């Protein structure tokens, strides 16, 4: 394990904190109806998206997921830009056509998210193929949840990516739930990293609530992919604090499981560590929190004062 500098740790903490505060704010906006549609919370799972993106170069790619705000923050998308899309504004990168769930932002290497789970996997592999073809030195991260692993696209794509030694890293955010059904009811193998062997691929498993662990494993995998040594499958074990979506009554879930999940907090865990290591003090932590909250508030104000996507936009870009 390489030594992570204090500065880098502080940066990771800031991204993690920003993701958490953004998520809390989005849930609030969802509840008041200002964010439309369905919202799938990433509370408790943030360390994965932040950890795997933090080591990417700006020109590297990652697909989005339906719990994907950590990816967007990790990829350093300005909050104003993201919030404009989340609130359906014309100056979001998708001009309010796709919203937060299908957030697509090529300027920051974010490849969007398909409605079908698994649809994004071959697309990400295709982007990696183009990177290899052009010898561009770029790397693609393809991230998805444990439920998606059961799609045929997972099998087809991992086989090909390994066979062609493509510059791609597969990251599974395993929260143990495929929507309303527990993993144990759907998966013959709950240790997803073990599937890598079937594709002659390197498989790794990490505690997805430990951001430094995620960061380190991602760093190695990204370096391997960039060198031309082929893909890695990284399984990040996490806990889902909320239901599948905000408002999900979770009648299918034992309340004790929810309680236990919420006790595993990647943010407070990392915060405690940085305080123990004297990288953060209570005072600097509070200052940071205030400034993050301010930034989010400014982003919301910016988005709210931006024009809403117009009727005409609905009919654009169907064809080139």
């Amino acid at each position, binding site marked *: 394990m390489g030594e992570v500098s204090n500065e880098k740790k502080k940066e990771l903490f800031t991204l993690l904190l920003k993701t958490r505060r953004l998520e809390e704010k989005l849930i609030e906006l969802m509840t008041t109806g200002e964010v439309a549609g369905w919202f799938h919370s990433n509370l408790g799972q943030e360390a994965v998206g932040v950890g795997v993106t933090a080591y990417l170069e700006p020109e590297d790619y990652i697909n989005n997921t339906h719990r994907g705000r950590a990816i967007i923050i990790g990829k350093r998308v300005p909050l104003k830009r993201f919030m404009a899309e989340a609130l359906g504004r014309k100056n979001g990168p998708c*001009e309010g056509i796709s919203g937060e769930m*299908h957030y697509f932002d090529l300027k920051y290497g974010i490849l969007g998210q398909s409605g*079908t789970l698994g649809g994004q996997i071959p697309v990400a592999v295709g982007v990696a193929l183009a990177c290899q073809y052009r010898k561009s030195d770029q790397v693609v991260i393809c991230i998805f949840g444990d439920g998606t692993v059961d799609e045929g696209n997972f099998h*087809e794509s991992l086989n090909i990516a390994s066979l062609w030694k493509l510059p791609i890293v597969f990251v599974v955010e395993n929260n143990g739930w495929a929507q309303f059904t527990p993993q144990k009811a759907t998966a013959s193998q709950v240790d997803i990293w073990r599937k890598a062997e079937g594709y002659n691929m390197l498989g790794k498993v990490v505690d997805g609530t430990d951001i430094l662990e995620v960061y380190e494993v991602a760093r190695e995998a990204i370096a391997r992919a960039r060198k031309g040594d082929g893909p890695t499958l990284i399984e990040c074990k996490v806990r889902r604090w909320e239901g599948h979506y905000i408002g999900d009554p979770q009648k299918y879930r034992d309340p004790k499981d929810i309680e236990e999940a919420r006790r595993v907090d990647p943010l407070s865990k990392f915060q405690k560590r940085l305080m123990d290591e004297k990288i953060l003090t209570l005072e600097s932590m509070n200052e940071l929190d205030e400034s993050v909250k301010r930034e989010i508030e400014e982003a919301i104000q910016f988005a709210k004062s931006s024009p809403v996507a117009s009727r005409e936009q609905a009919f654009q870009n169907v064809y080139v």
Partner: protein
Amino acid sequence: MKEITYVKAINEALREELARDDSVIVMGEDVGISGGSFNATKGLFEAFGSKRIIDTPISESAIAGIAVGAAISGLRPVAEIMFMDFTALAMDSIVNSAAKMRYMSAGQCKAPVVFRTLGGGGVSAGPGHSQSLESWFCHVPGLKVVYPSTPYDVKGLLKSSIRDDNPIIFIEHKFLRAKGEIPEEEYTLPLGQADVKREGSDVTVVTWGQLFFKVATSAEKLAREGINIEIIDLRTLIPLDMKTIESSVKKTGKLVIAHEAVKISGFGAEIAASVVEHLFDYLDAPIRRIGAAFTPIPWGTVVENAVLPQEADIISAVKDIVRSRQAKN
């Protein structure tokens, strides 16, 4: 001019576009070393190498999805789905990824991918390798759908499809040895433009794909009986060239739509509805549609012929509406 087979015309189009533009790649099952299941990609692997002519595993969904990913990153993949029946396995990548990428990203990217696939029956290929499923794709905004009949059309349209910036379903038919003349020099044909393959004044017959050949032989027989049909070969279904259909229907007042796909919910229904909506006053007789029976396509010749539209069906439909016009007069 030179005479060439349908499959050779496909091969020439691929070869010319690969030579012209190094962002063009060809991928699919058996397209590389073996030269393709039906020789469409013969010799390309030797000429352009394994980086550009890519043999894939039997993974249609991944083939199509990977092609989309490569397309949004600046390549122009031509992805082969061996039989049209197998597009069912690639449907998510085609319908949910290829067709929507540009729209969902508000124009941040484009997906210039061509999905080549072999449609149609008539060769005892059985229920799993004979379907004409073009109407599935005509129903999806964002896709273009091309189904050429002749060697001349298939070459010119494949070249244009590869150069087009939209995702395209490019359907080839199974009369791969059908011969036709093409120019010696390079040419392309515009998408979205129907071709009047035969001029006539009595009945307009709109057709496409491999049923064109049966319509053409029907036309000769009908001419001997004094009935002159005008054959419109659509070549491209989406975008649909309604102008050419309109001007012909205004001239003849009678319309037969003949396709090999199952008649129910076939693309002919869309054309018929559009003509009724816009040209009702010009019609002298009810529109007739010809298509396959509402069954899977069986294997044996007798049963397959019973299901797929035949020359006799075309001739009798044309005569029917000519007679109904005479009765009306």
